[in-house]
């Protein structure tokens, strides 16, 4: 398959400016170069068959009903070399450590960062994700972002930037592990050539982190459960995957009861106490007593139990204040404030719209910028200036003027590119990366993460619901194998 040539304005992951394959991609590129069209098609078929058989699907809503589609994984992997990964790992640990400190400071501490004038008070209290119900609910070790998904992109110069933080219920880790399992079966030879770092241990690491935040009173064998909204949730596959890989119960709200501030699950032998809940239900549905009273997914009394310290909930309630997109702009300040360090992975350039001068500039250049609502995730509500119609731009302008706190603007980031299969050949497509970071006794990054790819030519939208796919992400180990392969 033909080699890619570099295009101006975009950073190509696999080839340099002169069109030469970068060293860490050489074995992969050579491997794919040797494949014939028929062989690639054969691999594609094997992959579809295997995902279909295993029921590895996601749900697309819209149309008549939610339909299950098999997970779209592109065959061409993303490769990150050891040195580059070491930098990313340091940067991610730094960022999540600072975010944990920030959330703990706000909810259970002195709010020192506010008193010291680093972050304005009104910014915190105006976050939709700020939950007064979570005030003074302690979390052991302050591990509030037990699982964080940090979305990274590479700009036109190839520099990594953080596009957004996901500190509430980041999903996608199951696909990281299933992608790897599929790739290992499809291209076993490629793995024997390279020292690709394993991702299989995620379940163990997650369980260890969850057990580490158990209430101190519950002894040294805490009971952990995963709380899911149920089989109709689009991420149910992942919830079941996580419970299975940790060997713990997958419970729904109706399986739990709270009595005298003790949370228990209904079992065949009666009620059994639960100490740590990894919930995959949003704050608003968690406990109808304090949040949405209409919620049938949650557990009445759960927040009171958390406040009494008899149960730990991960991720912590109220984390939305940490991944609000306006608060995001302050993360480099948090890193400096709490850790005394400079930010290793910078933010994308961001404009805060309640600041008058920044707002004026944005309104002037709105057709060149990306405008985002601060509290959404999953790409909802975003207006991409260069692609929007005049009417859409006028509407965005008005929304900003009506409620400047609710919006931010960013420069368009030219996502980097990597070859992806386009039906009969490999062609460059835009990608991003969501690494997963676990906080417990220590902060740990799972090597790689979920690489999402916009499968449509020229598209920058990587969401799987909108024609996006994924790629296995290979972090190379420190061993000399790659160098040998590159030299031979």
């Amino acid at each position, binding site marked *: 398959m033909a080699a890619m040539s570099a295009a101006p304005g975009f950073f190509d992951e696999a080839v340099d400016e002169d069109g030469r394959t970068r060293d860490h991609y050489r074995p992969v590129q050579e491997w794919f170069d040797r494949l014939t069209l028929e062989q690639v098609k054969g691999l594609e078929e094997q992959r579809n068959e295997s995902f279909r*058989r295993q*029921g590895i699907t996601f749900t697309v809503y819209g149309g008549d009903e939610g339909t299950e589609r098999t997970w779209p994984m592109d065959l061409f992997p993303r490769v990150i070399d050891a040195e580059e990964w070491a930098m990313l790992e340091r940067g991610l640990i730094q960022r999540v450590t600072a975010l944990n400190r920030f959330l703990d400071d706000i909810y259970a501490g002195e709010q020192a960062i506010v008193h010291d004038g680093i972050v304005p008070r009104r910014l915190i209290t105006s976050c939709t994700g700020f939950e007064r119900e979570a005030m003074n609910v302690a979390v052991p070790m302050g591990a509030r972002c037990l699982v964080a998904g940090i979305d990274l992109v590479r700009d036109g110069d190839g520099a990594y930037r953080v596009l957004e933080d996901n500190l509430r219920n980041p999903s996608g880790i199951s696909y990281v592990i299933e992608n790897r399992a599929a790739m290992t079966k499809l291209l076993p030879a490629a793995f024997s050539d390279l020292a690709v770092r394993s991702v299989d241990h995620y379940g163990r690491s997650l369980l260890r982190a969850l057990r580490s935040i158990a209430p101190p009173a519950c002894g040294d064998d805490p*009971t952990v459960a995963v709380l899911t909204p149920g089989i109709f949730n689009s991420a149910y596959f992942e919830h079941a995957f996580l419970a*299975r890989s940790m060997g713990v*119960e*997958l419970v729904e709200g109706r399986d739990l009861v709270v009595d005298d501030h003790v949370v228990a699950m209904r079992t*065949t032998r*009666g*009620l059994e106490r639960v100490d740590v809940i990894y919930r995959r239900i949003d704050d608003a549905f968690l406990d109808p007593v304090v949040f949405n009273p209409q919620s049938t997914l949650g557990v009445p009394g759960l927040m009171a139990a958390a406040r009494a310290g008899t149960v730990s909930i991960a991720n912590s309630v109220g984390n939305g204040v940490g991944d609000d997109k306006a608060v995001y702009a302050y993360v480099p300040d948090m890193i400096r404030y709490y850790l005394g360090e400079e930010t290793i992975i910078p933010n994308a350039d961001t404009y805060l719209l309640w600041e008058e001068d920044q707002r004026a500039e944005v309104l002037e250049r709105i057709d060149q910028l990306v405008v985002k609502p601060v509290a959404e995730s999953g790409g909802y509500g975003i207006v991409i200036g260069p692609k929007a119609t005049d009417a859409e731009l006028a509407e965005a302008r008005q929304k900003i003027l009506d409620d400047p706190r609710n919006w931010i603007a960013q420069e368009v980031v030219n996502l980097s590119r990597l070859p992806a299969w386009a039906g009969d050949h490999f062609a460059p497509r835009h990608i991003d990366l969501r690494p997963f970071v676990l906080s417990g006794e220590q902060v740990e990054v799972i090597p790689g993460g979920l690489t999402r790819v916009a499968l449509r030519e020229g598209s920058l939208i990587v969401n799987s619901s909108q024609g996006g796919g994924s790629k296995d992400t290979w972090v190379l180990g420190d061993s000399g194998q790659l160098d040998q392969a590159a030299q031979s």
Partner: protein
Amino acid sequence: MLARHAEDMFWAGRYLERAEDTARMVRATLLSTVAEPPAQAIDRMQNLISTLRLEVQAPAEDVETMAESLTPSPPMLRSEAGLGIDVQAAATRLVVAPTMAGSVAFCIGRTRENFRSLRDQIPSELWEQINEFHLRLRQDDFPAAMEQDPFQTLDFIRVSCQSLTGVISSSMAQGEGYRFLVLGQMLERALMTCRLISVRYPEHDGSSYDEMALTLRSVSALEAYQRASQSSPLGSDVARFLMVNDSFPRSVLYCLRLSETQVEALASNGRPPPLQRLGQLRSELEYTDFDTMVADLPRHLSDLEAGVRNVADLVSGHFFRNAEAFDLHSQAITPGVSS
């Protein structure tokens, strides 16, 4: 284990068993109709549908559909199963109709749904198998395959069910979940065998070897019967074999014994109501003189059937709904001992 998971496991077992039994019965019936005149063949198919018309008690969300299609009046069943078209079409409906409660495709769909909510509890291999089987039954060309080559298709279903059972017994930890699944299978199988005998028995007196053979073949018992008894089968002999033989795995007695083993292991203390009832049923069947029983077989069979259904209710009340009846303030909550 979670009460909800235990219940899903139990129902997965029942639906899986029902799918396999239905496929066996359809196969045996079709085999008998091959050389028969159409009118007789239709009667035979109607007879099969009566056998399959079981009142299955299902969890709340199932009650409506199950009740609708499993206990309709016979005329409804006739049209629902496509009778009046031809025997082959009716057999095809019983196998492939995805929304007709009790069809093989329906039962496998339900088995899959139950396993789907148990994804974290069951081995991945089991999920892959049921998923693949389910998808095959729903493929566009499957009804045509059933029309064109019913025996091969029914064999495929039987083998698929058996390989699921194989995966269950060879790769699933034999803890609580496994026992609830086997319990569901055994109770469903006992019910199916009871129904088969009660529908087929009236034809037995003075009937031909072919009729006996069909009854036995419907539960894959012909070979086992022939080895156990060299004499040419009499109606009462066949009934005796299917009810109280203690080594044939589809006899009612065998199913009750295996059910009892499961409940015994599941009961954490004492002899809970479902175990008492099972013991009672089993010993009645085991120790009542069969010749006495055969004198009033229809009554005995309907009592037995009611008894088995009662056991299923008691299992549900004792294991699946127990926590609801708890008085929260008087019950101590077991501190974090994971089961």
